[in-house]
């Protein structure tokens, strides 16, 4: 004796948020039923396990039928198969495209290729996120990447428009796409302490200030690529460290300004040349794609770690970078003010964000 067929179809499609989440998390039907039973829903609604199983299977089936549409969220609003109220549609899309920070940290900056997808079981094992869920998240990244890759115009807006994502989620996806296309290294041990939101913040800074679209969004170029001209110009900043006079002058200006304002003044003074060299070298190397990938590891190794070992507080870092940036403008032989501001603005906010 068995139930051979069991379906429920409402004129308005019924979707339970809780079950949807279980489905997204990759639970099997029977596991989902267990979770629901533990959640106490049976007592609440006078249901039994059979009813729960039937409901869960039915919901899962509905979600599977909807998944096709969720791949193209714009379709969801003008398809005819499911009558779903708009607020529900928004919820479905938002939750479907939501991702786990733990997961995204694992694939951030990696090529969204089949190879990476094959390794997802390792990611799953490492993060404790179910493989099914990992695959969905990965496929979402890849799908967004593919669509946006070829589009002109601002990255965040493109994503929001095509995938009907809420503001914050759209920005996060922009970060993921940006990282994936520039292949930033984020997986090194030294970078492990950084959260996805740290990176997303930095990505936002880079997108807003260092890409072609940042200077001229009328350009038919994209937000995904860094501004090559700017990267070229960054080489000119080398003068700050190659010219001995300029370096000394810069140091004295900074030290004058900092004296008495911080507890780690001595360390700052002692490290000035090293730090300045690091920052300028990072800038000068960015023209090479390979060095772009190492951008974050360089920042951490060459700037953040020395500061941290000298026990600078983030206030100290802020103070130092502010004066370091501003003093350069006072140098009489230094001509590259525009490039310097554009470079240091991003560097400063990135460092401040990831200095913790």
């Amino acid at each position: 004796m068995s139930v051979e067929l069991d379906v429920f179809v409402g004129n308005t499609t019924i979707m339970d948020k809780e079950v949807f989440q279980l489905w997204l998390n990759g639970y099997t039907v029977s596991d989902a039923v267990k979770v629901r039973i533990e959640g106490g829903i049976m007592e609440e609604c006078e249901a039994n396990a059979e009813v729960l199983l039937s409901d869960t299977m039915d919901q899962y089936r509905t979600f599977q039928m909807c998944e096709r549409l969720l791949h193209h969220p714009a379709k969801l609003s003008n398809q005819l198969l499911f009558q779903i109220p708009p607020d529900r549609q928004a919820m479905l899309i938002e939750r479907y495209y939501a991702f786990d920070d733990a997961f995204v940290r694992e694939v951030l900056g990696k090529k969204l290729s089949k190879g990476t997808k094959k390794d997802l079981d390792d990611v799953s094992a490492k993060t404790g996120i179910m493989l099914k869920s990992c695959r969905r998240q990965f496929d979402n990244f890849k799908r967004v990447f593919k669509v946006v890759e070829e589009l002109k115009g601002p990255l965040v807006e493109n994503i929001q428009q095509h995938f009907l994502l809420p503001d914050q989620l759209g920005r996060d996806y922009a970060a993921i796409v940006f990282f994936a296309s520039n292949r930033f290294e984020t997986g090194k041990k030294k970078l492990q302490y950084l959260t996805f939101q740290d990176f997303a913040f930095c990505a936002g800074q880079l997108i807003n200030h260092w890409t072609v679209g940042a200077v001229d969004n009328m350009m038919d170029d994209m937000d995904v690529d860094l501004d090559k001209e700017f990267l070229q110009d960054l080489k000119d900043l080398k003068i700050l460290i190659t010219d001995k006079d300029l370096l000394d002058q810069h140091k004295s200006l900074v030290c004058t300004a900092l004296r008495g304002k911080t507890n780690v003044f001595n360390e700052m003074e002692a490290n000035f040349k090293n730090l300045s060299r690091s920052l300028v070298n990072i800038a000068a190397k960015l023209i090479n794609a390979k060095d772009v990938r190492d951008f974050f590891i360089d920042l951490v190794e060459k700037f953040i770690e020395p500061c941290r070992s000298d026990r600078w507080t983030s206030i100290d870092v802020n103070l130092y970078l502010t004066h370091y940036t501003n003093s350069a403008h006072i140098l009489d032989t230094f001509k590259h003010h525009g490039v310097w501001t554009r470079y240091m603005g991003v560097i400063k906010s990135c460092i401040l964000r990831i200095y913790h």
Partner: protein
Amino acid sequence: MPGKLKVKIVAGRHLPVMDRASDLTDAFVDVKFGNTTFKTDVYPKSLNPQWNSEWFKFEVDDEDLQDEPLQITVLDHDTYSANDAIGKVYIDIDPLLCSEAATVISGWLPIYDTIHGIRGEINVLVKVDFFNDLNRFRQSSCGVKFFCTTSIPRCYRAVMVHGFVEELVVNEDPEYQWIDRIRTPRASNEARQRLIFLMSGELQRKIGLKVLEMGGNAVVGYLQCFDLEGESGLVVRAIGTACTLEKISTLTSASATHPSNSSPSKDMKDSPQAAPSTLGCRSTHSSPVHSASGRLSQGFSVSVPTLLFAGMGSGGSAGKEAGPLKALLRQQTQSALEQREYPFFTLTSFPPGFLLHVGGVVSARSVKLLDRIHNPDEPETRDAWWEEIRQEIKSHAKALGCHAVLGYSESTSICEEVCILSASGTAAILGSRFVQDGPLDTDYRFEEVAPPGCGFCHIPYDELNIPFPAQLTYCYYCRRFKVPDVLFTTIDLPTEANVTGKGCLIQARLCRTKKKAQGEGNATAISNLLPFLEYELHTQLMNKLKLRGMNSLFGLRIQISVGETMLLGLASATGVYLTALPSPGRIQIAGKTPSDITYEQHISNMQKKINDTIAKNKELYEVNPPEVVEEMIGSPIPEPRQRSRLLRSHSESSDEVTELDLSHGKKDAFVLEIDDTDAVEDIHALLTDSPMPPGFYSCNTEIMPGIQNWTSAIQMFTSVRVFRLNNANLTNQGLNKIFSDLCENLLKSLYFKLRSMIPCCLCHLNFTVAVPEDELIQVAVTAVAMSFYKDQTLENGRQSGDKTLIKAITENDEQLQFNLELNAESSSSNPLSSTKGLSDVSGSHPSARAPPVDYSSFADRCSSWIEQLRLKAHTIRRGSVKTTSSLEKASPLPEGRSRSLQSNRSYSGSSVTVVKMTPLSFIPGAKITKYLGIINMFFIRETSSLREEGGVSGFLHTFIAEVFAMVRAHVAALGGNALVSYSMKECVFMENPNKNQAQSLINVSGDAVIFVRESELEATSVQPQSAATRETSNGGDGT
């Protein structure tokens, strides 16, 4: 050439990829009507083609306009090979033929393929121009309006109700033609779909002609069914009630929203109902045919809902004129009605004054052996079968002293070559003042004097003249007229009825095994089983009714489904406590040999359990009737009515008729004897019905007694379950339990699914059972869940757990028991009171009871059963004796029904029109401003990759969702935003998992309407014109 059909193909979207190489499609469209075909250009390499074609014009007869569907085929152009079909859209253009309905079909319609399902959408524009307005009704019946709604549609008023119309067309089923062996499944399915579209068009046209003949302009309660008889053919049949309807003039209705009439918010049944009921203003109806435009211009005021009967025959296909039956008691009313071939009405709720008395449920069944239909043009056999049944129903009604049958419906169940035809209805007496022929003096004793709230409960017959062992008491409401103790009906609860507490769904379920047999032997076996099945269903119903402390059933629907090795019976109805009727007796349990103490203990435990359940139910449904002093009248019995016949199609003679009387002599107390295996089963069945979770109510009628304050949140749904019995050797009891559990579990699942809508009521719960294969049971449910406001009018806090209330109930209970004992005593003194009644003997005299069923010998048993069945039959009919006073006041219910509005979620962001669907005839909190036409669609879906489509559940889930989507799209294209009176009349599912195949057929119907939220209506009522014509609250075009 009286008509010109114009079609424009605008665009397509979401098309499937047909060319793997380019991942695109080169689509073009074939537009076909009759034998004419037009083609659009190929729109190359796009999944969202913009054809923007010219207007394709078809010049056609209006007959073809009615019969033929417009067929739109989307294809992929292929230079080197044959063009691939993407899918089709069938458009029924009937709504465009009536100028009161839709004027244009415009919008995105799903492109459907029987193998792949929905494959994108196409945007079309369809219009019809008539050349000649005057003669256009000559050959055809264009302009006759069709409604599925089984009451007078809101925004219309009935000028006249003419009566029964029926028609039947047969054809060979393309699935079984020889050519089917060589054509593809797709071609076969499409041939079938197209044929059924054609047949329903033809059927509708023929029915329309009959309506015109009778002088009507509309069919209400239109019920169309398919019988898939397999090898022997395909039958499409329809019944309905011909009426002359008059649109409540737009001006009046718009301005009349503030006065209580014509606003459906205050009047859930019909718009005329709330109109002041003054007599004598009868509109005469001269011209049988109206051009609809002409009708619109007639500025009728919303005066009186005058109903007139046309005194002509229904003009049935056989053209048979039943000789006028000379009745003695019923005078002109009756004779006028009886001149008609069948005085049947498919309506279930009526304008005031229409219904006077109800005689009870009448039903007839007949088992037939199917034979190949030799000549499709002369479907005489099928016609003759139905005629027999109808005659039987008619004679049942007559024997009950009634001249009309209301809430009439017909159904079939087919298994291999055996077919059970069933018909049922409620015998009734209609108001004489509605008979057309001549002004009649009303000589009904009860008329004009009986209060409207109870008048319909009063027995119509003279209790001295009818030998009827019923317990009659004086009406508990007016104390003046006699009422029966239990009422069974197939109609909806009249709005004016006085009801105590709330109603609830009551189901009797039964499963009986049957030996596999062939041909005549099989038919005989089935017809032998039928009476027992029916008897037991009634016993169950009666017990369950009593267990809930109620005394009447409305909307009774008994479905009997036949399989190869079993018969399924499912009876559903809504139990109600009618204030006018006496309180039901207790259920008492007795042991046969009260010898040992533990045994008695056991019995008393059970008794206690039952009593507790009754008490709990009374509390739950707020059944706390006012106490009354009781008087008893020993009463007569009418002659047996329930018949079950076996008439083989070829043998004319088999006239041996088993007369069944299903009446239980006395109703005051049921004694269930637990020595008796059947009684054990009964008790089991009684107690296994799990209670509904708090916050839920259910009914299978249009309205739920006791709940009025609906919110606007409604959710229509269909749920289907198929259950496999792996265990071949099941006893009847075992089967019964499985079947009952199946239904119970299904209900539980529904409650769980819909928990977010609490407090809510599942209305119009419609169960359909089938035995698709040997060991399969299929149950399909369609209903609408409607939320209501918990803490408003009429809701006396059940949740508050009011102690005093409970106390009051128990007190009442005691009071009633006392009364019942009085009842019982007087009835047991009545010699006619059946001592044979199975298990019903007065509670106060258990010892005097006759043994329920004697199992000692088979013959005895049979005879006594038949005896009991016979008795029972009376109950069923007698069950619903009604009297309706002609002087109806506006009922108290509609007035209390001021539903406040809940601002619905705004769907404005969506580009797709939201279309509500409901099996009810109204939408809570909204006013239906226009009926756009009938939607009647038939789809077939087949797959040969069942596993890949998610197994049987995935397959059927997708299909049902697709059907809903197509229905919504067609409603939206007509400019509507809701489908009311929706029903899924057929849902056939067949599978062959070994071959990875499955096939399903679904037939749905309903009325497409435009509704306006009451809040919006108030806002716009300042400008009446725009309110009436412009308002399509969600915007009609789906573009």
